[in-house]
């Protein structure tokens, strides 16, 4: 039983990090900067799950409000003050 529990935890870690690769790729490729910020917040959420599974719950408590709340909020304020589209 314990052997399966170990494998399941590692499987969740692998799936979450693969999904974070997809989110990072979309955040870099996307031309609409608001969407890019939202993809980067998604990547931060996956990283928070990864931190929790890597036995760092104190990092999750700090990282989640900073990287999912504050940094996207400040970047969206910057985008609303400047320009939204990245030119070709």
């Amino acid at each position, binding site marked *: 039983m314990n052997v399966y529990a170990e*494998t399941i935890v590692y499987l969740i870690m692998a799936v979450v990090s693969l999904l974070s690769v997809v989110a990072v790729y979309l955040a*870099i490729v996307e031309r609409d900067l608001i969407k890019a910020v939202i993809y980067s917040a998604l990547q931060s959420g996956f990283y928070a799950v990864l931190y929790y599974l890597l036995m*760092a719950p104190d990092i999750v408590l*700090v990282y989640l409000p*900073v990287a999912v709340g504050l940094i996207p909020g*400040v970047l969206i304020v910057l985008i609303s003050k400047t320009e939204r589209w990245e030119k070709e």
Partner: protein
Amino acid sequence: MDAEFINTYLLLVTLTSLLANAIISIYGLFFKPHYTKKVIALTILSDTMNTFAIYLGYRTWVNGVNPRPPVLTSTPTEKSISEFTARAVDPLPQALVLTAVVIGLAVTLFLVFLGYILYTHYKTLDMREIKKLKG
């Protein structure tokens, strides 16, 4: 299939995708022309490096016993301390990453205000156009 082989393979998948994240964000940092996109890539790169540090401090399961967060919740006795050192993950990378997350927030705020001043000065944030302009 051997369970240990599958576990090693899954941990290797995690490490490889973190490496892929680092490579993609370095590409975005150097080759994307827009300033805001460069800031986003920088935050992703610093998060990925923090995750590498946390990953280094991780301890795999020993004989089916799971690792614990490095926190002692009861009054330390000799038995609980020996159990703690046998099971808990490394607390040092976690302390360093906690500091690095907050420093990364400060750096990002500075870069955001720098970008706002760049925009008021040049009326664009595209780095190819800013390179051409003078004054």
